[in-house]
């Protein structure tokens, strides 16, 4: 019960406050320093997450630290770190950097709280903390109508989902009398008949709606493409790579754990959601010309793959599937984050060519990127291939484990429809190559539209970090598989 375990969150909260204060004091010019400060803070918190071993629970068990929370905190911190590093260039010279970094850190803390939440109240608070911070971040380019529109849509759908989630939580609370997750589990395990009531389904589905909003599962995904496209690119990275995972960790915690009794049905719901989501994401991604939008749909599709983790039934495979889901979430954080940052580089490049370009993320700007910005292009290549699930990459390892567990589960249960789901997933995976390859073609096949540029160092650092992560997990996945499996074990399916 060492409070040291809370150090990552505490550090970030205090840093956020410090940054706000500093922002009031220092001149606009030196606000760039705040970015480095935040990066340092995030780095430190990553170190703490990795270094401080141990488990514990705090605040009347509302807040736990365990392998599950740690790996997700790691994901959130890493994504934020990438976003922060990239923001150093993206928001260079902006007067509002202090607020930006503070909000970003708070959003990170919110996500971390969700990762650690062991109580619906904490979960809700964490969710809202992260959401509200990201609403603002999404609309951070106040002069840009797209950014504000993105924020508005994000906000409206987000609030709706929050309300749905809250309503669901209230029902769960009403049924079980508990808000703490262990309490809810206990109630359901001791009263299995209570778990099968119709009201239960409604409650669950409202919860699912809330989580699925963050996960951007179809049909709760509507905001995602618009928001990812309109938001500042670095924020899109944060949203797609980071806050999306918040939905997953919440879903893992609540749905997997709390609803043991009704898992068979939730499983079907998630199977349908997963299949529809990945298919929808992939099919619509094909026709996109905006890379950010394409990445958004790809992100939706990836969410579909990750949510296959809920489909497995047999305990052994279920645990493995969740491990795989976590692994893929980790991989996705890196690849998607990296990809968005690469898009940011292209945006930077396009604007330095011509100030007046509107759609900086249009596919055409990627033409000849391999020549214009070789590091970015190569990294983007790796990210895209990883997203497509080509080995050896983080994207492959995650998919490998998930597909493995679902296949085996299908085999164990001799379940035709599960096999069907796996096959659909596989076809989807192949289909996705189509639009990833198109970007690759633009980058490497088409002639460049301009001179070679010097890629700003912060971007390069962020991209290379993501790149190392993406390949590293693919090449040496052992420790990450361990972490993910440990985390899955916490759920004790």
């Amino acid at each position, binding site marked *: 019960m060492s409070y040291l375990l809370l150090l990552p969150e505490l550090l970030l909260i205090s840093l956020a406050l410090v940054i706000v204060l500093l922002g009031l004091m220092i001149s606009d010019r030196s606000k760039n320093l705040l970015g480095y400060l935040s990066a340092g803070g995030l780095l430190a918190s990553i170190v703490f997450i990795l270094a401080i071993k141990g488990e514990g629970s705090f605040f009347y068990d509302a807040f736990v630290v365990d392998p599950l929370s740690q790996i997700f905190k790691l994901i959130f911190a890493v994504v934020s770190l990438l976003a922060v590093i990239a923001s150093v260039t993206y928001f260079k010279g902006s007067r509002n950097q202090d607020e930006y970094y503070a909000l970003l850190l708070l959003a990170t803390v919110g996500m971390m709280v969700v990762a650690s939440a062991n109580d619906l109240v904490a979960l809700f608070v964490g969710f809202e903390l992260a959401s509200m911070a990201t609403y603002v971040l999404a609309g951070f380019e106040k002069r840009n109508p797209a950014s504000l529109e993105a924020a508005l849509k994000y906000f409206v759908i987000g609030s709706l989902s929050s309300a749905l989630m809250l309503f669901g939580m209230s029902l769960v609370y009403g049924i079980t009398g508990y808000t703490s997750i262990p309490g809810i589990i206990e109630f359901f395990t001791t009263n299995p008949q209570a778990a099968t009531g119709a009201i239960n389904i409604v409650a669950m589905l409202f919860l699912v709606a809330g989580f699925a909003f963050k996960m951007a599962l179809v049909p709760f995904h509507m905001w995602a493409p618009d928001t990812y496209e309109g938001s500042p690119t670095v924020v899109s990275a944060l949203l797609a790579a980071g806050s999306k995972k918040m939905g997953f960790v919440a879903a893992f915690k609540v749905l997997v754990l709390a609803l043991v009794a009704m898992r068979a049905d939730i499983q079907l719901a998630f199977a349908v959601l997963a299949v529809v989501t990945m298919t929808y994401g992939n099919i619509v991604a094909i026709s996109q010309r905006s890379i950010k939008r394409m990445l958004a749909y790809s992100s939706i599709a990836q969410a579909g793959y990750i949510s296959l983790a809920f489909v497995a039934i047999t305990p052994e495979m279920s645990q493995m599937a969740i491990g795989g889901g976590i692994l893929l979430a980790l991989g996705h954080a890196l690849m998607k984050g990296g990809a968005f940052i690469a898009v940011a580089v292209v945006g930077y490049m396009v604007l330095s060519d011509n100030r007046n370009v509107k759609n900086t993320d249009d596919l055409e700007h990627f033409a000849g990127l391999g020549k214009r910005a070789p590091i970015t292009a190569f990294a983007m290549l790796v990210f895209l*291939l990883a997203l497509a699930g080509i*080995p050896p990459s983080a994207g492959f390892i995650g998919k490998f484990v998930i597909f493995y567990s679902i*296949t085996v589960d299908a085999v164990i249960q*001799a379940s*035709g429809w599960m096999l069907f789901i796996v096959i659909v997933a*596989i076809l989807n*995976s192949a289909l996705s*190559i189509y639009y990833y390859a198109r970007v690759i073609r633009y980058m490497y*096949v088409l002639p460049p539209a301009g001179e070679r540029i010097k890629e700003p160092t912060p971007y390069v650092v962020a991209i290379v970090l993501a790149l190392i992560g993406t390949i590293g997990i693919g090449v040496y996945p052992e420790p990450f*598989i361990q972490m993910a499996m440990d985390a899955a074990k916490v759920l004790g399916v």
Partner: protein
Amino acid sequence: MSGLISLMIIIPLIGAILTFLTRTRGQARIVAILASGLSLVLSLLLFMRFDSSIPTIQFGESYVWISSLGINLKFGLDGIGLPLVLLANIIIPLTIIFAWGETKQANRFYGLILLEQVGVLGVFTSLDFFVFYIFWEVVLIPMYFLISIWGGPRKDYSAIKFFIYTHVASLVMLLAIFSLYFNALSITGTPNFDIFHLLKNYQVMDGWLIQDIITLKDAIFLALLFGFIVKMPAVPFHTWLPDAHVEAPTAGSVILAALLLKMGGYGLFRIILPILPYSDSHGILISLMAIIGVLSILYGTFLALAQRDLKKMVAYSSISHMGFVMLGAAALIPLSVSGAMYQQFSHGLITGILFMSCGVIQHSAGTRIIGDLGGIAKHMPRLTFLMLAGFLASLGLPGMSGFIAEFLVLVNSYFTLPTFVILALFGIVFTAGYHLWAMQRAVFGTYNQKLGHIHDIASYEMVSMSVLVLLVIFFGLNPGPVLNMMTTNAEQLLEFVVLRGVIT
């Protein structure tokens, strides 16, 4: 001795990275040829030290990789893999020499070829299913680039079609791998992705995948088979191949046809044959394989007859020739199987000549449409000579390696699949037909003045083609060393077949 194989794989990898980093064309190709040549030397060393009288894995090496899933970097060679390793190491340096004059993004070009070598060598040597799969997939990417950067007018369509088609196949194969792995895991309790381990445990698998429709064993078998026949490719999953070939640059086509297709055949021998006797409905499955094989032979031949584009014709001829591999494998007679293996080896060499010829013609005459060519022998006597040698080899002229392979397959398959052999024989006549028809119209006859003045083959192109022609003749006259190791393994493979009474 141990470590040679991984060294052989790593050298081209390092070479590839270095090649990407080089600045000039000259540096790039020197580095590339050195790296691939060094790999060739190593494989020759392996070849010489190989004991072809024993069917077991030799030069085995193993390193722990992902211990929690039981994945090891396990490499080794036997009579199935070594000839193909040799083939890969022959083809790649020759391709690099052939493409000595490449000017467009030369460093990337050579680098990708080296990466292709890495992938292919990995596939042929890895004994861990996971590692096998990774290399299997890795091969796709350089080829995608080779097609889509250096390809022809419809390169985008072709490259993506190639990628998606073969990727789907690999993913389906992956499902089968999952099931095999899980099966072995639940039987032995220890996670292990070793290929032989998984295949051995296939024997004691049972249950239905879908009740009363398909058993688990059969489903796994079919999924694996699907993965391989798309790669080979066999009818009806072949349509990616002509498109890919037509658009690919010559070097890409050569590698694609000579090496990538061989991965499918390799899978048949390494993975399909050991489990075939244990599958639940092996009778039907054998017939299925034979039907696919013969269908490929005949269909490929007929389509080759219909082609106007020389390269497309050659592409279809590949389909037809790979049909022999399938047929030989399905026959389950030691010599038919080793004949099929030999067909792989031999076709790799021959198809290299054919695609190189197409490349030279395209390069010199600016077109590959048979009807637009004509009489180019007049200006390209050296090419004509080499091309003719290649075409003759391809149509199965005795004295060249293709004949040995096809003869062994036909003769030995007759024991178990007489009808199919008779059908395949029909294909042979037409095979000669399209080859000669193309030669007659494209190369011989009156010179088409519209072509203007065309140059004969460049010296570096001639070097690599000549080497291939010599090798084709060499292996046509002296199949012994390579064939013996194949036969040793084929006999071992089929011991189980006989034991299980699949065939008499």
